[in-house]
């Protein structure tokens, strides 16, 4: 029983990390109808910016104190992501309005390549560290009930808490502020939103900036786990099934989908893996999503797809 609960908790926390990245996809798709394949590259770009700024600040300004440097680096990286969002909207999105889905998809893939190359050229292509003070040692719970206790990684736990806080603050943003309402209006119906005076291009810049913020938080957490290197952009490929499982247009869906896929991956690797040769978690998420889509083609929480003739 002990190992099962351990795998379960590990899966839940891994799932929260996936849903961090999935949130960026969902936000952009909700508001602009674009499936942003560049989200992984944005995570990498943001993480690189933060890691390098945290490195350069003490060197060039003599600032000290990890907290101060990290906060300024975070703010700097956020500013960089806002600039990226503005450039993407200006140069690419505004000229591709009304194109077919697959054209937009390929355009975001091109933007992904562009960001990957630019990030590595501007910030370097070594492995960099992000050190935000997350404790690396594990902790053991319930040592009386289960033998040896249940191993819970403190780092993952803090990351899950940060992700939860992010989701809560995003929900507050969407529900309580005027900009959040404008974003929801644009997500609902572009033309109607435009006709009541909501400036679409500015909303798209805001959405991509918020997605950039989410990418920065995700990059910060994944970067402190894995180190900031090129393979960070491949983490997005693991988050894709989460997006689809939850439904492309649903924020709670991204969370629930993330938890399900995280748990599913870890449990399948532990229990099915040895029978099939190992390495199952590579494709388990995708096959799980395939199965769910056959029953519910719009994902768990997505909008029902209505075909009109």
């Amino acid at each position, binding site marked *: 029983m002990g190992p099962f609960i351990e795998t379960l908790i590990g899966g839940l926390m891994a799932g929260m990390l996936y849903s961090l990245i999935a949130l960026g996809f969902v936000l952009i798709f909700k508001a602009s109808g674009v499936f942003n394949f560049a989200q992984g590259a944005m995570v990498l770009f943001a993480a690189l910016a933060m890691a390098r700024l945290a490195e350069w600040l003490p060197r060039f300004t003599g600032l000290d104190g990890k907290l101060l440097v990290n906060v300024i680096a975070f703010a700097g990286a956020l500013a960089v992501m806002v600039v990226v969002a503005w450039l993407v909207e200006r140069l690419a999105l505004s000229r*591709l309005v009304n194109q077919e889905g697959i054209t937009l998809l*390929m355009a975001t893939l091109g933007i992904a390549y562009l960001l990957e*190359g630019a990030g*590595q050229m501007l910030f370097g292509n070594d492995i960099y560290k992000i050190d935000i003070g997350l404790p690396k040692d594990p902790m053991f719970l319930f040592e009386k009930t289960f033998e040896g206790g249940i191993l819970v990684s403190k780092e993952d736990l803090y990351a899950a808490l940060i992700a939860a806080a992010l989701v809560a603050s995003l929900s507050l943003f969407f529900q309580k502020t005027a900009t959040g309402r404008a974003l929801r209006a644009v997500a609902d119906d572009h033309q109607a939103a435009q006709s009541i005076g909501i400036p679409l291009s500015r909303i798209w810049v805001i959405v991509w900036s918020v997605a950039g913020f989410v990418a920065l938080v995700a990059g910060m957490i994944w970067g402190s786990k894995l180190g900031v290197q090129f393979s960070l952009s491949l983490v997005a*490929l693991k988050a894709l099934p989460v*997006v689809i499982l939850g439904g*492309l247009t649903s924020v709670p869906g991204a969370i629930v989908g993330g938890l399900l896929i995280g748990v599913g991956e870890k449990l399948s690797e532990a229990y099915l893996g040895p029978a099939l040769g*190992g390495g199952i978690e590579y494709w388990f998420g995708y096959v799980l999503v395939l199965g769910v889509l056959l029953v519910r083609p719009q994902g768990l929480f997505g909008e029902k797809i209505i075909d009109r003739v």
Partner: protein
Amino acid sequence: MLYRENGQFKTTYAADSQILPIRQDRIAMMLLLIAAFVVIPAVSSEYLLRAVLIPFLILSLAALGLNVLVGYCGQISLGSGAFMAVGAYVAYNCQARFEGMPLVVSLLAGGLGATVLGVAFGIPSLRIKGLYLAVATLAAQFFVDWACLRLKWVTNDSTSGSVSVAHLDLFGLPVESPQARYLLCLAIVVLFALITKNIVRGHIGRSWMAMRDMDVAAAVIGIRPVQAKLSAFAVSSFIIGVAGALWGFVHLGSWEPAAFGINRSFDLLFMVIIGGLGSISGAFFGAAFIVVLPLLLDKLPYWTGLPMDTATASHLALMIFGALIVFFLIKEPHGLARLWATAKEKLRLWPFPH
């Protein structure tokens, strides 16, 4: 002036429905085929054949297959690398496990293996549409990646995980020199392009295009969605499977599963989009773009004379590649084939403005 159709009247239905009704087009195609079959192998260097023309031909075959699925039938598929992999591995197993198996049979067997997988992963397309289908086909990609790595019988129990094909021969003639390999690929590509063009002009092709444009309306007028979608998946994966087998046998010689990873799928999709969705010539344009561009970009530091290390050069190449893709999609979302069609239209009127 040069491209007018004046005086070209058709007197039979067969003549009217030929693929190239304009005489200048037929002459141009004849010249192109003569150049491709006779002139190019004679004058090209080994580098040009091995590094540019053979990959171009094989990838244009794969892009042709993908265009059938994405361009003519409208089903977005991100798993084309997996179909290439299955084609390559099935062909390899045919070649390696059976003594004296003819090359053509192995290649076709590779295509059939990919067809089986394609139909299996095409069944979800009956329920799932659009972007959801794109991610569902990624399941095929990752599953095949894993299977080629972990299932020992796929690689014929190879210890290193990579497989190689010794020597090829076609009906007793050895296919070793670059010229022979080039001619083999060219013959297969021309044959498949002709067959595909005719399939697409027939009633199956029209049913695919109906499903692409509005699948509910197509079902209403009596086109069976199951037949249309699964036949598109079948034909497309057969072509992609043969291309994969060619890629492994002729171009790579020896390969491991990473050769058919997700980057290959993205490359094929780029070729189809940039070349032009729903056009046979578009596959060739797109393949030319994607094959030639990285080679040009790699030479960039040498031409501009700027001193830059290899890392910066490769990052710059990646950036320019991404930027060009976005630029092309903004300028001409219907691809290079549309640009070519526009040019031909203007050529019909030349030298007059209208």
